[in-house]
C-alpha cells in the first residue's frame, strides 16, 4: 500500500466511545458487557447536585477473549464528566479487577486491560472517588503478580490525577501521540503555581512534556502507537506475550532515584530529558 492507502485504511481508536473501543480490541463476537446501562446502577451523588446521571456512570466493563485467551477490559468514557471517577464508575473498575484476581486464585487465567481516559477524581463525589481509586490501585498491584496488567491511554482527555498513579502501576502502557499522562493537569498547575510555572494554553509545550511520544522516549510508557485500532490491539497483545517482568517500573526504585539524580532542576526540558533518560 502507498502512504495514502495506509492512511485511509486506518480506523481511529480515539474517535470511538468506551464501548466501541472494547469491541475493537476483543476478538470478534466475544464482547459481553457486565453491569451495562440496562442494569442502571447510577451515581447516587450526582442527582443530589442536579447533575444528569448516565446509566453506566461512564465506565464500561466487558469480558471476552483477546488473542484467544479470556480477557477483561475496563474502559472509561471520556464523554461523560470528563472521564472522572465517581463512586460507581470507580467501583466497577475495582470490582472487575478484583474478580480478575479471583480467576487466578481459582487456578484460571484472564488478561486484564484498562483503557484510561480520565481527569481523575470526580469532584462532586470527591472522597468516594478517591477511595475507589485507592482500591483500583490495590487491585492492580495484587493482580500484576499473576499477569501483566496492560493500560492504554488513547486521547484526547488523557490520564490525570489519582488515575495517573493507577496507570503507572500497570505492567505496560500503550499511548498514542495524542494522549497525555500526568498527575496534575496543566490547568491545575497554572492555577496552583502561576502561569510562570506553566502556561496551560501552550499546547505544544504541554504535549512535548507529557504527551505519548515523550513518555515512551524517556521510558515512562512502553509503546507508542498511531491512532489506529489495529496498532493498539497489536501493542496490547505484544505486552501480554512478554509476560510478567522480573521488576515492574514502580519497583525500579534505585534506577529512578539514580535517574532523578542526573537531572539538574534548573536546566531540564523535554529534549534534555531524552538525552538523559532516553531508552533508544
Amino acid at each position: 500500500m502507498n502512504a495514502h492507502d495506509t492512511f485511509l485504511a486506518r480506523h481511529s481508536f480515539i474517535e470511538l466511545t468506551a464501548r466501541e473501543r472494547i469491541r475493537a480490541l476483543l476478538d470478534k463476537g466475544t464482547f459481553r458487557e457486565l453491569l451495562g446501562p440496562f442494569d442502571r446502577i447510577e451515581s447516587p451523588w450526582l442527582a443530589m447536585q442536579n447533575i444528569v446521571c448516565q446509566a453506566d456512570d461512564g465506565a464500561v466493563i466487558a469480558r471476552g477473549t483477546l488473542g484467544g485467551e479470556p480477557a477483561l477490559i475496563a474502559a472509561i468514557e471520556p464523554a461523560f464528566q470528563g472521564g472522572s471517577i465517581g463512586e460507581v464508575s470507580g467501583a466497577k473498575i475495582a470490582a472487575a479487577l478484583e474478580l480478575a484476581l479471583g480467576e487466578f486464585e481459582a487456578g484460571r487465567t484472564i488478561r486484564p486491560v484498562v483503557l484510561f481516559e480520565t481527569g481523575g477524581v470526580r469532584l462532586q463525589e470527591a472522597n468516594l472517588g478517591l477511595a475507589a481509586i485507592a482500591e483500583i490501585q490495590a487491585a492492580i498491584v495484587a493482580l500484576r503478580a499473576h499477569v501483566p496488567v496492560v493500560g492504554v491511554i488513547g486521547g484526547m482527555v488523557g490520564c490525570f490525577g489519582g488515575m495517573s498513579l493507577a496507570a503507572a502501576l500497570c505492567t505496560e502502557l500503550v499511548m498514542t501521540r495524542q494522549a497525555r499522562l500526568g498527575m496534575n493537569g496543566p490547568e491545575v498547575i497554572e492555577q496552583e503555581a502561576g502561569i510562570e510555572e506553566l502556561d496551560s494554553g501552550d499546547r505544544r509545550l504541554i504535549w512535548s512534556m507529557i504527551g505519548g511520544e515523550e513518555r515512551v522516549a524517556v521510558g515512562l510508557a512502553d509503546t507508542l502507537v498511531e491512532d489506529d485500532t489495529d496498532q493498539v490491539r497489536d501493542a496490547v497483545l505484544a505486552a501480554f506475550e512478554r509476560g510478567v517482568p522480573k521488576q515492574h517500573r514502580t519497583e525500579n526504585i534505585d534506577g529512578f532515584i539514580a535517574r532523578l539524580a542526573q537531572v539538574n532542576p534548573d536546566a531540564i526540558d523535554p529534549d534534555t530529558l531524552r538525552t538523559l533518560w532516553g531508552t533508544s
Partner: protein
Amino acid sequence: MTDALSRGERWLDALTSPSTRTESGPIRARDGQLDGERASFFAVVPDPENRFPRAADNVVGLEQGWLLARAVREAIDADRDAGVKRPIVAVVDVKSQAYGRREELLGIHLACAAAVDAYASARLAGHPVIALIVGPAMSGAYLAHGYQANRIVALDAPGTAVHAMGKEAAARVTRRSVESLDALGDTVLPMSYKMSAYAKLGLLHELIEGVDADAPSSVDIERVKASLAAAVKDARNGPRDLSVRLASADAKRTRAASIEVRRRMREQWSA
C-alpha cells in the same frame, strides 16, 4: 525558616525513639514500640532545601515518592524471613502533591505510584499497615502515603482533613463559594471537609476524639499508641486486601453503591 515542627514531625517524635542517625531530606523513617513490639513509622516532613522548589513543604513530590518507596521496602526486606511482620505506620500530614512543570516532566505520577506500590506490597506481604492521620491527607499525596493501609486511624482535631482537592481550589473549579461548599458537604457526605463526615463513609477504623493534635499530652500520646496497637491487632486478624473498608455499618449505609456494584458484577461475572 521557623523552628516550629510540622504536625507529622511532632507526632513522629511523640510516637518513636529519637533517631540514632542524622536525619535530613523530606522523609523520616523511625522505629517505635507498639504494645511491646517494634514498629516502623514513616512521615513526610517539610524540606526547605529540597532541590525541587515546588516540593519544599510537606507535600509529596518526586523525591518524596521515591524515597518513601525505598524506606517502606527496606522494612519489607528486613522482615523477609520473619514469621511475624512488623507493623508499619504512615504518619499522615501531607498538604498535597507537588504542583510543578518539572514534577510532571520527570514523572511525579510514577514516583507517587512507587510509594503506593511499596505500601500495598507491605500489606500483601503480611505487614499490618496503619495510616495515622494527624494533619491534612490530601488527594494524590494521601494515595501515595496512607491510603493503601489495612486500617486508617484519624485524629478528630482542627487541621485534619481528607479530600480530593483543597477547599479554595475546589470552590474555584465547581464555581461555588467556600461557604456554599461547606453547606454542600453537610448534605453530600463525600464532599465534606469534616473528619466526622469522612468517618461516616466507613473507611476509617477509628476516629480518635479529644486529642490535642498540635501539643499532645502524654495521656494523648498513650491513647494514640493504644489505638495503633489495637488497629495492628485487628489488621492481623483480617484479610490482606482492602475489603474491610466495605464491611462496616457506616460503609453499608454510605457506600451501598460500592457494595451493590461488587455483588451484581460477581453475579454476572461467570454467567
